[in-house]
């Protein structure tokens, strides 16, 4: 049956605007775009895109877990980079995180993110295990 659940996840920064961290609906978990910040919304990783990516995935792990999911349940990711040339730096982090799992993926360069200094943001959709 289709139930809807909005998730605010402990340890995650306050969502921007009138959003929440993730919504479970229709058997899917829709995860907000995740930026490399700590609970106080301070940038993590300085200007190192690899460290920023690690932070994004750690935040994503926590949000997925709150929704009863792991990286193995992710069906789609969208990666936003402020510099598409960073892609080869970020890919090894994705491989570490996902292992054998390969979600559908889109990666684009955008001109700015909501957090000044952030170079990467990733959103995802996961299929909630039944």
């Amino acid at each position, binding site marked *: *049956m*289709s139930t*809807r659940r*909005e998730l605010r996840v402990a340890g995650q920064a306050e*969502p*921007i*605007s*009138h*959003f*929440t*961290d*993730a*919504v479970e*609906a*229709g058997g*899917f978990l*829709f*995860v*907000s*775009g995740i930026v490399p910040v700590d609970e106080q919304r301070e940038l993590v990783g300085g200007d190192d895109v690899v460290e920023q990516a690690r932070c994004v995935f750690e935040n994503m792990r926590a949000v997925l877990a709150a929704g009863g999911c792991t990286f193995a349940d992710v069906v789609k990711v*969208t990666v*936003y980079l402020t510099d598409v040339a960073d892609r080869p730096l970020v890919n090894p982090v994705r491989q570490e995180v996902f292992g054998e799992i390969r979600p559908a993926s889109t990666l684009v360069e*955008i*001109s*700015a*993110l*909501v957090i000044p200094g952030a170079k990467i*943001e990733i*959103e995802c*959709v996961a299929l909630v295990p039944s």
Partner: protein
Amino acid sequence: MSLRNEISLPTRPVLSHSADAVQANELLFVAGILPVDASGALVGEDDVSKQAQYVFAELDQILAAGGCDGTDVARINVYLTSIEDSSELDEPLLRTCGSARAAGTVVEVRALAVSGARIEIDATAVRSP
């Protein structure tokens, strides 16, 4: 049985080879909404606040046509030509979603498909039973 139903409102312009939304079972995939009227002309001039109000009002219409409302929205993506404009989302987003909160992503892009547009939104909703 699976359901697939394309929704194209007569009040919406046809900008591309796409529908305004596609219903797929209980999911409703809403296409990118630009601040343009039925003729494709820009709405709100250079006022991002007016443009934001307009695209969310259009989202309301498309959701309704798909049997949903703002409380069914699971995620919204917002594309702005200036990230400084993100505060303009607060009021129309609250009006559309009410007590509900969607997952969201907000990014700045260099350009949108219609010249002068400063915001585009797309969304996925899940119809409540």
